[in-house]
């Protein structure tokens, strides 16, 4: 069984995002970048499958992004992936999810051995978008199960049963491999790579791909147009009304009418 995990480099969830002038994008200078925590679930799941099963032959980690995204690949390799694929070309940099998915699908087509299981996060925390996974599955004509919270792969490695939470219930899906799964929080807890594994990760092979390696990408057009980005308005300050309930109620009504002007 060969497993592919797709990893994206994103700003740390606690980092303060600064917007560039005129909303041209976000300021990456000094911004702490990490592997997307949902994608890390995918890597962890792949590594755990190998620890549990004897038939996992290789775990490949793939990322699409600028030079710095290579750091994210190193994290995946330190966690236990065997080899990396880094699609790195400014010509391929876009915020269009479908285009990104097409690039990844083209890169996967170049892989002669093929993958039995493709894993990625349910969504990415940077743009809160989750189209890449399902779109890659579509482009490769593979089945896809989204937001998986439980997984059982059959002993022969040909089928799997996945669980996913849906509104008010849990859905159980049976499906054949190969397939693409996007992982929801709660299925696994990503490991903290040990120092020797971080060292070993530096020596694991990473294949660099550029636009020239993926001629098929030309078939696809960007479907999303980036207009501008802006920071959310700052939270207005809370106002506490003190006193006895009758006075508090009166004061609240006054404030709603006179200050907030909503009554």
């Amino acid at each position, binding site marked *: 069984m060969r497993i592919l995990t797709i990893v994206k480099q994103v700003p*740390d*969830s*606690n*980092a*303060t995002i600064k917007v560039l002038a005129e909303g041209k994008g976000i300021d990456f200078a000094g911004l*702490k970048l*990490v592997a997307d925590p949902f994608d890390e679930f995918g890597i962890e799941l792949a590594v755990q499958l190998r620890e549990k099963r004897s038939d996992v032959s290789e775990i490949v980690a793939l990322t699409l992004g600028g030079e710095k995204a290579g750091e994210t690949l190193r994290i995946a390799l330190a966690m236990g992936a065997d080899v990396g694929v880094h699609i790195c070309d400014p010509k391929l940099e876009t915020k269009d999810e479908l285009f990104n998915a097409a690039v990844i699908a083209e890169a996967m087509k170049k892989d002669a051995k093929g993958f039995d299981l493709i894993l990625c996060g349910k969504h990415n925390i940077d743009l809160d978008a989750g189209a890449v996974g399902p779109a890659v599955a579509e482009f490769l004509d593979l089945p896809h199960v989204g937001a998986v919270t439980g997984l059982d792969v059959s002993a022969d490695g040909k089928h799997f049963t996945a669980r996913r939470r849906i509104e008010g219930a849990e859905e159980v899906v049976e499906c054949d491999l190969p397939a693409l799964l996007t992982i929801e929080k709660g299925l696994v*807890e990503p*490991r*903290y*790579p*040990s*120092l*020797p*594994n971080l*060292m070993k990760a530096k020596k694991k092979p990473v294949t660099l791909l550029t636009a020239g390696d993926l001629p098929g990408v030309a078939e696809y057009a960007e479907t999303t147009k980036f207009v501008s980005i802006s920071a959310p308005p700052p939270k207005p300050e809370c106002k506490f009304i003190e006193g006895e309930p009758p006075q508090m109620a009166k004061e609240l009504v006054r404030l709603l009418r006179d200050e907030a002007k909503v009554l």
Partner: protein
Amino acid sequence: MGPIFMALLLLAGWGAFAYSASRRWKLLRVGTADNRFDQPGRRIRETFRYGIAQLRMRRYPLAGAAHMVIFLGFGVLLLRSLILWGRGFDESFSFWLFAPEQFLGKAYSFLKDLFAILVIFGALVFVYFRVVRRLGRLTLNAEGLIILGIILAMMVADILYDAATIARASSGPGFILYEPAGSIAAVPLGLLSDATLVFLRHLGFWTHSALVLIFLNLLPYSKHFHIITGVPNVYFQSLQPPGRLPPIEDIEGKLEREETLGIRRIDQFSWKAILDFYTCTECGRCSDHCPATKTGKKLSPKHFTLDLRDFLYRNADALTAGDGNGSVAGGADGREHHKDLVDGVIDPEVLWACTTCRACEEECPVFISYVDKIVDMRRYLVQERSEFPPQLQSAFRGMESNANPWSFSPADRANWADGMGIRTIAENPDAPVLFWVGCMPSFDERAKKITQATARLMQQAGVDFAILGTDEQCTGDPARRAGNEFLYQMFAKANVEVLNGVGADKKTIVTSCPHCFNTLLNEYGDFGGHYRVVHHSTFLSQLIADGKLRPTNPLSKKVVFHDSCYLGRYNDVYDAPRETLAGIPGLTVLEPRQTRDRGMCCGAGGAQMFKEEEPGTQRVNIERTQQLLETNPEVVASACPFCMRMLTDGLAAKGREDIPQLDIAEVLLEAVQVPQSHAGA
């Protein structure tokens, strides 16, 4: 009295001992290098204070007195044993000057009798502790009782020998002033026949002579090895500040060479650690004061040492066979003596229960260290096996991504100072005082109030100070104590660069966090950062002493003060926080029973703050809160943001939210006249 037999006895006794001692010597040399040969003057002084005068034994007054008597008795009776061995060859042998007719001989005889009696009393005290009181810190086993039995028998045999000699004297039994014990014992013996007396005299003589040798041969195999190793162990104690953990040098090089980070195998401990194992007296004082042991955790410092010692002894032959000599590299090779200690020798739960409070080290009469060993074993677990309590991962990741273990946004680090008119070091580069705030006091809503109170007090006193603002990062202390030395060193290097860049080495650094205080003061030296660091308790008490702060508002409250481990035991700051409080009119400082160097940990240290407490019968903070509540306080005061969190939780758990938990700075601020507009003061 039988020269051939005595010769054989001595040969066998000393021969067997030489064999055992040489085995222990070889095993000691399996340990890795550690230079403990510096500062001989200071080492000799320490040895006199703690090895000879045994100042730490006095912390348990009765046991200390009993031990002192036995210790002195052994010294006095050593000469007696030599004399008796000599008399095996020549019945009148007495080392010349000590002959019975010489003054020195008479004086010595008297001293020897006195101590024989005192040693009997001392040993009986220990029998009482073990058998009658059954103190929890002691393990009731055959070894302890056999040794006490031998000591008692030696003394009795010695007196018996003298008594029979006196009883047989041609002048008839009489009271010999310089042999009081023998004379008294001779009175009943006078009733016996001469043949019986001859027998008893021989019995006493040979029993004493032989028991000394048997005792000698038991030493290397028992807790009584400390009779030999105790004084050297005190001499070779660490002279580094207790707050400084030795750094792992050249981590990346070690990784390249596949050497262990931290301690994985028994032969990776230093020779001094092995001497610690030899020296443990099993007195259990460490565990008596360990917050983990007290609250039912798996950790007992005594058993931690004994488990390592027993494993070391079990594998002594394999370890000394040659291949393990000082080897740091390599790991599992399937052989028992090379096995990972965390796989069956020391349960990881034991390691993770430690709060690094140093109560054990403060108490140990023979200066055995614990915290460095526990952290070294954590270093291996965390860095190489990546095995640690899961909650620590978010602390590590928070530090990596946001330079604080809670993952607050680093951009918000100085938000506490909004509107206070506080300048950063960039705005006020010549400020003589740098206020190092720390993570919790920067971000935590409750702890921010400590920071604001401290800043207000400094403003009030006209102190020209600045903060690093968003350039400040975690000191790395939680990572270091959790065993993540690599992460710690990243912070140490980065912070030293920032601090040296703003000339902090020529300023006074003030901080309200004892953990930051300790790391900045004691641990950054290894990374090129040498600073004058003052905890806010010391700084504030000095401002009061200098008349710059006048606590004039009376505060008629009974305040119990809780010592922070990293302030007190680690850095000997006990008085400053008390003085800060005591200067307030009307305020009474209460002391819990467990106070100052015996103050119990709040439970947060050693990265416990960032993980779930290990399973036990009680939570450390609740136990400590209970101790504080026993003083019936109106306020619980602390001088550490971590302690504050633990004690606040403890008071809530005890249903005593009516008692405010305040930092000394907050209490002081209440007592200092604050003008309406403090800004720009």
